[in-house]
């Protein structure tokens, strides 16, 4: 069976957990911006976590099913409708042949995920993840995002409807974007100090953790720019070094850029640390204008939290 793309909206792409083993050649990993939501979409259908899903940015897209099948929807609330009836994310549903799954504008968060039974997409370098800059991945194996007229192949299977327990749905996806922007309560983003952290002045480090930073309009799968009180970078030129996922670069003008799934593999700006893996998905769901506050976490603590998240999907 297949899912036909009627309207691709802002941007829809095939993603998985990422493309590993080639970063030494400058090939980034790509992968789902909200890994937790991607994993849940697959879990709701009994798929392996590495099965590709369709990642939707912001919505305004529509799809049609060519046969009766189950599908799951997780992540951002993009005002989804199945044949015109509103449906909620973090659940699996049954669609009949000819049914239309359509999305409005983003209500909570930015990235939603559609899983299909054993969704199939060709792989390159062992991953289906779409990375436009690297011209890798996706249905056409050249990094192009989904277009109207594309057909996504999947197995035809109907399973009992399932849903993510409410306690496991992230709190940051239960507040609407407009509530979030009007209340201006900052989201806590946890970070592990590292890289050049010790080279920053005490004042710069204190500014970084005591002030709110606003998500800029310049956000992409590669990086999220933030605006706020300037964090003075060390007056040192560093040789370019390898970039870890979630690295927080401080530019010459003192503003942070958090490097996301399509990060460059090597870079030269000073880094004050890396945000934790769980905070990466949380930040990915923050719309421009949202406030964040950075809070320090130890590597051990961040590992324990990541381990607890991964354990949900083991076995």
């Amino acid at each position, binding site marked *: 069976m297949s899912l036909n793309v009627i309207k691709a909206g802002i941007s829809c792409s095939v993603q998985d957990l990422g493309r*590993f*083993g*080639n*970063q*030494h*050649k*400058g*090939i980034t*990993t790509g992968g789902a911006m909200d890994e937790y939501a991607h994993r849940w979409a697959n879990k709701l259908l009994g798929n392996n976590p590495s099965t590709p899903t369709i990642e939707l940015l912001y919505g305004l897209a529509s799809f049609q099913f060519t046969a009766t099948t189950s599908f799951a929807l997780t992540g951002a609330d993009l005002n989804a409708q199945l044949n015109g009836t509103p449906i909620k994310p973090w659940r699996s549903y049954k669609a009949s042949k000819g049914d239309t799954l359509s999305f409005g504008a983003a209500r909570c968060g930015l990235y939603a995920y559609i899983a299909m039974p054993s969704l199939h997409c060709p792989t390159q370098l062992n991953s289906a993840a779409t990375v436009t*800059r*690297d*011209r*890798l991945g996706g249905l056409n194996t050249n990094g192009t995002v989904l277009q109207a007229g594309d057909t996504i192949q999947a197995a035809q299977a109907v399973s009992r409807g399932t849903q993510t327990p409410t306690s496991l749905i992230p709190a940051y996806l239960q507040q609407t974007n407009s509530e979030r922007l009007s209340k201006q309560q900052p989201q806590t983003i946890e970070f*592990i100090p*590292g*890289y050049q952290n010790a080279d920053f002045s005490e004042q710069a480090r204190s500014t970084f953790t005591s002030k709110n930073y606003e998500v800029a309009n310049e956000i992409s799968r590669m990086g999220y720019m933030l605006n706020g009180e300037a964090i003075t970078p060390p007056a040192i*030129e560093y*040789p*370019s*070094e*390898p*970039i*870890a*996922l*979630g*690295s927080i670069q401080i530019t*010459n003008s003192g503003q942070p850029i958090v490097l996301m799934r399509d990060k*460059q*593999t*090597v*870079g030269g700006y000073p880094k004050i640390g*890396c945000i*934790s*893996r769980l905070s990466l998905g949380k930040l990915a769901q923050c719309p421009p204008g949202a406030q964040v506050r950075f809070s320090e976490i130890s*590597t*051990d603590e*961040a*590992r*324990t939290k*990541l*381990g607890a998240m*991964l*354990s949900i999907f*083991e076995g």
Partner: protein
Amino acid sequence: MKTFWANETSLCVSVSGQTQLEENELIQWIISHYPSDIAPSLNDVIPAYSSALFIFKDTAVLNQQALKRTSQKLTHWIESTAQHHSTAQVSFGHVDKIIEIPVYYSSDFGLDLPHIAHEKGISISEVITAHQRGSYRVYALGFAPGFAYLGGTPNEISVQRQLTPRANVTKGSVAIANNQAAVYPSDTPGGWNLVGRTPLFDHLQSTEELINIYPIGGSVKFTSITLEEYNQQSAPEYQI
């Protein structure tokens, strides 16, 4: 030598106190010789000038004691290797391959030639001559597929990167920043100073072709070509 965890799974190793070339040779030795039984625990190893990132598989966090044992074993091995390197002055990791990159040097493409000449108080033709005199080495690959960090730009033309990156740098642009040189393998934003354009990349399309141009540790030479030669070798859309 210094090691730290950059995030939950990424161990960063950096070396210091030697010349950039020695540090880079040591890093390249480390990433090609670390104990083979550690490899199955890793997703990626990214080398750069004087540091390398060992990225463990996510499953490693499910057994933190085992992760600490494995990473300690790696760190100890690297420490003893670095010790050996600095005392015995062993030279590591030379690659014989020389890549020759033909460049059309001109202010049409080399938009920053006047700025470099002005800043260094020399003529544009002296900048061009100095750029070709440099002996370059592939220190790291990254930024984008087919982008190599080439060390060896002579001090007499060494200038800082642009304060604000250009929104678009054309594929094939040859650029310098500090003591580094590079060729932009595709149209991307970029902040390095442009000195000319090479037709070498025009006929390479696929990512697989692009990522195999430079061997890490290999040598690179830039040679001047005329506008006529440039137009003969380049793709129609890049000719002038």
